[in-house]
């Protein structure tokens, strides 16, 4: 018992002599970058607005159609951002739609990161035939026409809903993640710490998940942030084209889709402009945070 405690103590004592962990450096670098802090604040505010607002609206049916209220302009009849063709309040649709788009982006990212990370670790670590086979599959999926296939599948799959959409987008997305991690892990394979661990008899699984994985935490954070932004882009594009979220589920893309009608573009900007601005803010702020993290990650590599 006592010995174990001692071991733990020496372990914690050793910490300061090691190079600072990836996460700490990343946080430090971000705090230095003023613009990134602004972008990060915007992300937090948008999350509060969309998720908090959706909670407040949870009792109401925002997609309920009331034709008598159709096409109110800005601020008319108590609708701050007006109403659409079905008399639905645009402000509420933007809030719920924003939340839905962000949630879909997050859900797809969780799946693609998990699948991509595990497969990336395996291909990068083992190399050889395993790597050869998996990478041929990855190559092939990447050259498939992603958008047309997803769109056709959304129309032929029975009981199509938001979860189906998440799986469809994830089905193509994991390949990019695999490539991202694989190249890094390939470079770690021959490093001393991996070889040392192997010599001392660690199992492959232990080396992959206990030794290599902690080394890529900052890479994971960066990739998650940028992938979420990318996936929000894919979902909104699909919804904009009319084949993303089902029409009963509000999405920023569906709202921006109002701009496909020339009459709406010129005379009813309240229909599509708020959603467009929110989507711009979301993509630009998340991407900025992602890029700042990337720079911070590079800075960490310089220090090592």
């Amino acid at each position, binding site marked *: 018992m006592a010995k174990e405690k001692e071991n733990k103590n020496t372990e914690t004592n050793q910490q300061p002599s090691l190079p600072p962990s990836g996460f700490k450096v990343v946080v430090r670098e971000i705090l230095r970058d003023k613009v990134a802090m602004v972008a990060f604040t915007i992300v937090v505010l948008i999350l509060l607005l969309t998720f908090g607002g959706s909670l407040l609206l949870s009792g109401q049916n925002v997609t309920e159609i009331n034709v008598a209220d159709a096409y109110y302009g800005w601020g008319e009849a108590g609708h701050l951002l007006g109403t659409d063709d079905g008399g639905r309040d645009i402000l509420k649709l933007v809030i719920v739609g924003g939340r839905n788009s962000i949630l879909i982006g997050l859900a797809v990212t969780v799946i693609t990161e998990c699948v991509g990370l595990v497969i990336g670790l395996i291909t990068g670590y083992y190399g050889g035939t395993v790597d050869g086979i998996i990478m041929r599959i990855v190559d*092939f999926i990447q*050259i498939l026409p992603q*958008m047309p296939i997803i769109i056709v599948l959304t*129309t*032929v799959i029975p009981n199509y809903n938001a979860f189906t959409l998440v799986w469809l987008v994830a089905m193509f997305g994991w390949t990019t993640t695999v490539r991202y991690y694989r190249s890094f892990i390939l470079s770690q394979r021959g490093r001393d710490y991996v070889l040392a661990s192997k010599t001392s008899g660690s199992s492959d699984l232990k080396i992959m998940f206990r030794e290599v994985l902690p080394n890529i935490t900052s890479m994971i954070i960066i990739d998650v942030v940028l992938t979420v932004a990318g996936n929000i882009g894919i979902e909104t594009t699909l919804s904009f*084209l009319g*084949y993303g979220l089902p029409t009963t589920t509000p999405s920023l893309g569906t709202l921006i889709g109002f*701009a*496909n009608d020339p009459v709406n573009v010129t005379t009813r900007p309240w229909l599509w402009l708020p959603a467009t601005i929110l989507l711009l803010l979301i993509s630009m702020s998340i991407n900025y945070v992602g890029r700042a993290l990337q720079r911070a990650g590079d800075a960490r590599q310089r220090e090592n």
Partner: protein
Amino acid sequence: MWKTVLRRILIMIPQLIILSMLVFILAKMMPGDPFSGMINPNSDPKTIARLKQEYGLNDPAWVQYTRWLGNLLHGDLGQSYIQKVPVASLIWDRAVNTFWLSLLTVILTYAIAIPLGISAGRHQDQWQDQSIQVFNYITFAVPAFVFFILGLWLFGFTLGWFPISGSVSGDVNPGTFAYYWSRLYHMLLPAILTALITTTGTVQYLRTGIVDNKVEDYVRTARSKGVPEKVVFNKHILRNSLLPIAAFFGNTITGLLSGSMVVEMVFSYPGMGKLFLDSISQRDYTTLTALILIFGILTLIGNLLSDIIMSIVDPRIRVK
């Protein structure tokens, strides 16, 4: 070098076969059959059943697959359900429109991206570089369709500088100069906007390439030999930095094809992407199947071109 090209083309054969199988499975998942396009209120269900039997729609899947593939190789893409014309003729006009739009876009993309990339790499960390980085961040972060909508709203509707939809005005006669000018004029705004948003990768690769190559040993050697700075930059640094752009070419083509749907929808431009969206809303499944196959084959060819160009410009990756 021919060995590399040949090997690369051979790799494409299994890819094509798997692609065709996938498309066939996708087509089988869609409701309807080739006769739905011929059915009218007067047709007898028994005749249809007989026709189905005759044309082998009750055969095992692989028999149907090989027959479908055989027809494809003869250029027979089937009959459109809705338009009641052969799919091939339906797609041809649209493909020509998409081709011209894509060609103009590719030219504009490189015309914008290469000077920007060179300038950013040359003046690393100076104001040119910093403003190009901001531009690059915007084109990377803004979703394409938002960019198109805002562009159309500003330059098409508000300022009225460009036409807002279609591929040609109705009041010009085909064959005249005014006709070709009108077609070009209709393509300009979509092409410029697409080009701007596609530059990201090329600018970034070119900048990084130049920045990395600047400090390489061979550049120092060239300078110490007394090679003029201009020649060092154009002959040594630039040539090596252009390599990744060749590799990126296939990617650009793929991006244009998948992006064609969005840009053609926003600008109501009658190309393949618009045809795809129209077909799906009309449930015209034969046309859809053919279009997915074409999109897939074009993407494969884009990648093939990319690899072949790479092997031409970079002798290091050729098969020995």
